[in-house]
């Protein structure tokens, strides 16, 4: 069986800067895969290439064995900043994907309403983004990506702007939603514990150039509750990944200060 997502020899250069070097990945249908690494390791660029928002310099991204040539309805992108349209209501924002594809009939509308309920926004359909909290805006962001019923969810640090408590709530919500729909997920984050908690596998990237350092299988049982974060197994995974990227993170912190 062909994997859902296959990435072969993916590299990306921005002029003299080598952002990504020879990334390879096979993700089965319904897998939850996280990408972690220090800032500047190219993890967002990686996701943008898979989304078709950015061309690769070499190598290829295959979905169901077919190469990606641009954005498509098979992939839903959840952005780091929610990117909601301020003049649209929650429902109209969530409907933008189907609308762009020319499907905004009552059936799509009903489906989107169901999704808003799924992400916990029932009763807020008519609100405008400025009336919502950061956590609620990210829920709309997620519902908007789900509204095109994509087979793959691409998530770019979606919870990074939220406070710690809200972030943990959103992680469990995402787990619940993922377990219901079993989409293939590529999840970029800089939070190691978030990656371990959510994923079947964590890809650890190194920086300059961004390259795959290790692929860590997370063999924790599902469904996972937040309490699992305090178990020794969980902490071992986090420690292991942290040690892999620690030097790189220190280097990037120093660089940012300069």
């Amino acid at each position, binding site marked *: 069986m062909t994997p859902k997502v296959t990435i072969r020899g993916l590299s990306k250069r921005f002029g003299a800067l080598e952002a990504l070097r020879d990334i390879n990945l096979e993700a089965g249908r319904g897998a939850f895969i996280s990408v972690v690494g220090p800032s500047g390791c190219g993890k967002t660029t990686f996701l943008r290439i898979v*989304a078709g*928002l950015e061309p690769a310099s070499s190598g290829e991204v295959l979905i169901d064995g077919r190469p990606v040539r*641009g*954005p*498509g*309805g098979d*992939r839903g*992108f959840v*952005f780091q*900043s929610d*990117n909601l*349209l*301020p*003049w649209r209501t929650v429902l109209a924002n969530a409907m*933008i*994907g189907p*609308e*762009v*594809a020319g499907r905004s009939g009552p059936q799509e509308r009903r489906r989107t309403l169901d999704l808003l309920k799924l992400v916990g926004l029932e009763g807020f359909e008519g609100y*405008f*983004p*400025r009336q919502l909290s950061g956590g609620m805006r990210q829920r709309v962001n997620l519902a908007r990506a789900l509204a*095109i019923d994509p087979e793959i969810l691409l998530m770019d640090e979606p919870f990074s702007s939220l406070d710690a408590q809200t972030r943990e709530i959103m992680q469990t919500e995402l787990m619940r939603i993922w377990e219901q729909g079993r989409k293939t997920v590529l999840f970029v984050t800089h939070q190691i514990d978030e990656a371990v908690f959510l994923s079947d596998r964590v890809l650890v990237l190194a920086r300059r150039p961004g390259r795959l350092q290790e692929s860590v299988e997370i063999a924790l049982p599902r469904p996972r509750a937040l309490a699992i974060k305090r178990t020794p197994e969980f902490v071992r995974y986090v420690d292991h990944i942290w040690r892999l990227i620690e030097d790189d993170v220190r280097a990037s912190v120093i660089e940012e200060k300069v």
Partner: protein
Amino acid sequence: MTSFVQAVRRNYLAGTLSVLGGLLIWELLSRYLVANALFLAAPSQVFAAIVALARSGELWRHVGISALEFALGYVIASILGILLGLGMASSERIKQIAQPWISGLYATPTIALAPLFILWFGIGIWSKVLVVILLVLFPVTINTEAGLRTTSERLTEMLRSFGASPRQIFFKVSLPSALPFILAGLKLGIGRGLIAVVVAELFGSRAGLGRLISQSADAFNMPELFAGVVVLAVAGILMTAGFTWLEKTLVPWTKD
């Protein structure tokens, strides 16, 4: 209820008192201190002049002509300005060609060209319409272009991730996000357009509020001169208030 009264008191009381006080001082000044009908008219006399002009029908003749000149010039300038702004935002070449003219003419007090236009196009309404167009066009163009150019990269990308075409991106993101800028440009145009009408009429016209003001000045008829100014002020205030309401209705997300 009490909080409503308090809010009204807090927001409007000082302003209302200030206006009433100003009118009172003006009234007293012109009755007892200046007391010369050739220099100043009291608010009560101005009000009486407005009523008399309205009764005789003369006021409406002047208002009608000025309103027509303003409306024609304003609508033409708005359409041209928005189109020009769209053109400049969508094509680097158009922008390069138009930019020096727009920057130059926007900074120039083009109202000074009014006598020239009257020489060229006569004292009818079209010379005034042209002056209005010249004054309103640039703020509308500049704001339209700026609004479209500052469309958030992130919002455009979001739409692109759903496979949107450039046309869909324009109508679903660029245009709505430029709308507050376009409205602000149109609002700026109201004041400039009114100045254009009146000043152009001062230089030569058969009728209009500018004409009313200049002929009243020639005849030292202070109440009618002030009547013309007051009517203009009211028109400006009403139109600007109407626009503020329009902004609140059309682009509520820019408030608060």
